[in-house]
């Protein structure tokens, strides 16, 4: 066991954990941030996706020691001041879920994608999202939600720009 300081959703947290412990269990069990899900523990399904220094990362195969010092954003940090992010809003509007267990990982992965490609093509979405599994099979709706989120972001940017 060792002491680590994690910067999660903008706040520092002191945690005691084994250096090799996955970031996922630290978030879920030690910080009670259960929005990040366990799906496979092998980086094959994307349910545990978080943003690590702004990039989508699989928290189940990221050790806590390697995450210390990076900015970590979980699904709980995507919503700001009770305001849904464009991606969250788009998923809700498209009804892009069934059991929704994959949803938080999908939203975080899509958030990362839209940072890199604000107007992604279908091909860019497939490349970025193919590692995220939805067993309920809502892929077509998730694809539509990501396009919708892109449009919402563009609209917001336009509005912000107009406000100067």
């Amino acid at each position: 066991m060792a002491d680590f300081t994690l910067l999660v959703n903008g706040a520092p947290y002191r945690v005691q954990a084994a250096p090799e412990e996955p970031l996922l269990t630290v978030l879920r069990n030690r910080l009670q941030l259960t929005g990040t899900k366990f799906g496979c523990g092998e980086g094959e399904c994307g349910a545990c996706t978080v943003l690590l220094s702004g990039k989508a990362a699989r928290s189940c195969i990221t050790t806590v020691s390697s995450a210390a010092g990076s900015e970590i954003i979980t699904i709980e940090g995507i919503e700001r001041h009770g305001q849904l992010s464009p991606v969250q809003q788009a998923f809700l509007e498209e009804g892009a879920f069934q059991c929704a267990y994959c949803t938080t990982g999908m939203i975080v992965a899509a958030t990362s994608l839209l940072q890199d490609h604000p107007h992604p093509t279908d091909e860019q979405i497939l490349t970025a999202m193919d590692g995220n599994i939805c067993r309920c099979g809502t892929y077509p709706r998730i694809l539509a939600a990501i396009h919708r989120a892109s449009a919402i972001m563009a609209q917001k940017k336009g509005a912000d720009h107009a406000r100067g």
Partner: protein
Amino acid sequence: MPVDELALQQVSDKLRWFTLDRRDFLRLCGGGLLVCLAGDAAAQESGRGGWGGHPLPQQISAWLAIDERSQVTVFTGKVESGQNIRTSLAQSVAEELRVPFHSITMVMGDTDLVPWDAGTFGSRTTPTMGPQLRSMAAAARQLLVEAAAQRWKAAPATLIATNGKVTNPGSGLSLTYGEITHGEKLTQTVSGDPALTPAPDWKIAGTPVPKANGRDFVTGRHQYPSDIARPGMLYGKILRPSGFRAALVSVDATAAEKMPGVQIIRDGDFIGLVAPDEWTAGQALAAIHAKWTVPPQTSNQDLFDFLQKNAEPGDAAAQANVDQAIASADVKLTQQYTVQYIAHAPLEPRAAVAEWYGGRLTVWTGTQRPFGVRQELSSAFRISESQVRVLMPDMGSGYGGKHSGECAVEAARLAKAAGKPVRLVWTREEEFTWAYFRPAGVMEIRSGASRDGTLVAWAQHNINSGPSGIDTPYNVATKLGQFHEVSEPPLRQGSYRALAATANHFARETHMDELAHALNMDPLEFRLKNLTDPRLRAVFQSAAQQFGWGKTPSTPQRGFGIAGGTEKGGYVAACAEVEIGPDKKVRVRRVVQAWESGAIVNPDGLRNQTMGAIVQGLGGALFEQIRFASGQILNPDFGDYRVPRFRDTPQIEVILLDRKDLPSAGAGETGIVAVAPAIGNAIFAATGTRLRAMPMAVAAPIVS
């Protein structure tokens, strides 16, 4: 659903004390209205007034309560796993009660609070629980109208219930439901069938109401079973045998036992442990050294031989009768089809949190059968069912794969020994290995048709995978459907979305395609020639029309296939377009599926289910297969067990036929059955290669 979390908390605080005496509820609420649905309707669902020998307690199948704030709480044993019944059932209640959708809270799958229920499977929620809740709501509305009529000394028939209020159009007076029930203790047990609102008049049911608590899911706030935490909770792990049917030879847990906070729990061949954190639990498990002996067992290579050799024989005389009819047919065909074992692989694996307090056991777990799990726990620990409470927070799916309570029992064993609450979440490998599988099967069809395309005789046999969907919907003078059980199949097998209907439809709809080609007929024309069921005809015709069936002939690069069927009250037809690359690999490009299941309760939810069924169906059709040998699963992870991903998803078009004149049927399952044969038939149309084994990618290379 009320967004008001405080109100929800108040309801649940009150409900905590609301166990057997339902009048307590009213006392605690300071009044209100409670309506219970009596046994008749419940008995209809379960057959002879019980289910699996389980008597229905108090013969009550559901209840609902209206408090003085006009908030409605509905109690049902059905559970939500993504099929959207939390929303669709609330819509039905809101419709009949004439209240806004958002005033309804559904309490589901909590065995202390809801009436006994067999479980959520078999597409039964919409056709049975739906009408039961509607009956209750209609009766409650009638009571409210009568209570208001009494106050106003008006005739009930002159009053109108709408939007949570009773209004007297004559006087212009109105009272909210809460005002009517304030200070009252109205309880009513309803039986019989009050008049229900016909579907064409629906205003809330029949509309695309979004998922009730959708916001909780996009924010990560919803607590799934694997997210539940209790004070002082420990983390559990179970030592698994090295193979199926293994016997423990020796075990050395000394290193694990020395780890801080680790407690080994052993009871015969059951070896588990608890630790203060999940990481330590995993490390401790890895430090246990055990030796097992695993007896020789059937593997994939000899699976179908094994099933055929061990199948119960069936009715030879009935088959002889069909054979006789086939003998006189112009065109005769006998073919065999197979399906492999596949896994449900719900994204949330089995999970349970167990807590003992004062001899009473509480378990939060993901299951389609909370009361079944309660029974398993009660018999495992030899305590009465009233000492056990099972709660089922909306879970990360099931698809028929979470009927059983093994994880709950394991967590409870660990918690009992440790004297503290324990959370146990199965690993992906455990879920792929120690859950159960959709059964593998061998289907044989023998058929005969006359030269003009009329089916003359048909016999379909299914070995091991199940009887569901085995009866052909086509008109055949002499026909037979026979299921042949295998008493000890090689793998643990159980339910799955649509069960054997997928295997039986794959066999039948592929065979129909083969006959059509043998007769030189268009596959759709051949089907329609032998089909009078108007509902099935309608979905075939709708799918074909939207798809543009028959407008473009298949080529070696592009093939078109069609298939359909009916099961559990749902009617489905699918058209598939496949593309064959220069490397001979196959890609599914487009699927058009028409669906009809009576009056639609929520078109958005239904569209979502239908689309999801197509995507999930692609997996079993093309590449999902459990590989096993010597009692071991060889591909227990998402790297080696391929499930459909974004890139596998074709363009999907869903056509919903809304039959407001027909009762609503369940729609979670049957949407999966037509995908595989439609794809297989399309591959044949392009390549001339007939694929009779699911998954089909084993026989034909498919691009990833």
